[in-house]
């Protein structure tokens, strides 16, 4: 079976409902930059992590399945986190 190279971009963020102290800390500092406008300053809603990896797979669906497996095994802790995954053929979009 012929394989192609794919790029997967993974964004991991705190699971909805789980407290996000990193976002609270960054918000506090951002609002401190312009204290006179603190009330309408930007509020950081979540802080997460980004990972880009390349892998060989028969097609995009198979590539996504492989990366989802890696997420379950290691990269995402479902007690704390949820994730978004973007998969594209390597070379597309400059990734």
């Amino acid at each position, binding site marked *: 079976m012929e394989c192609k190279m794919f790029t997967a971009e993974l964004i991991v963020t705190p699971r909805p409902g789980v407290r996000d102290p990193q976002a609270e800390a960054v918000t506090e500092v951002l609002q401190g930059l312009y204290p006179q406008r603190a009330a309408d300053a930007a509020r950081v809603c979540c802080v997460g992590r980004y990972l880009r990896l390349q892998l060989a797979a028969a097609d995009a669906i198979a590539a996504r399945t492989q990366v989802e497996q890696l997420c379950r095994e290691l990269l995402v*802790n479902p007690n*704390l986190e949820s994730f978004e995954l973007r998969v594209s053929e390597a070379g597309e979009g400059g990734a």
Partner: protein
Amino acid sequence: MSGGPVAMRAAVIVFPGSNGDRDLAEALSAASFAVQLCRSDEPLPPHVALVGLPGGFSYGDYWRAGMLASRARAVRELPQHVARGGLVIGVCNGFQILVEAGLLPGALGYNAPPGFRHRWVEVEVSASAVGSPWFNLLSAGARLHLPLANGEGRYQPPAGGAELSEQVPLRYCNNPNGSYADAAALVDRSGRVLGIMPHPERAADPRLGCSDGMALFASAARHLRAELGDAP
């Protein structure tokens, strides 16, 4: 039967970035264990009765604290060690490694309110500690004075909110980091695997001002001495 002291063997696993390995080894030695420091990428040594995962910043806490270390060779062998009746303690980063490895349920997230907590805390022994080899010298309601030093110590139960209160042997008297159920420690269902966020090994010598932490190591030693009899 010699009747002499039993040379119980303990291994302290050293990960890239561990910094509490010597402290843990010293405390276990004081509790009469023969302690060996072992690399995390090597198999567990034979005939160890107790394995300790020390505090520190394994793999620099990259991605999630404890995540990368949780796949190390020595950690992958822990389930067999526990099934054979062995004991495990994970302190601070060691606790994070145990939850990431799935040996304890739930996860440890960033402290809330945000920030690194570095202070002495009071913890209370709960009724759930009864029956665990780590607490057999302590009674429910006893209080321990232990130092805490972590940024990711907020205990989060498994998604779905399984009832874990029977697995929380130590509770913070004043919750410093937003941990669920005031959990300062957790044991598995066998009671033999202990994850603990405060540092008992840093309160294990009266010359350092407090030796409350020794109760845990002495409890483990007593349990294993009874299990092993006089075998060397």
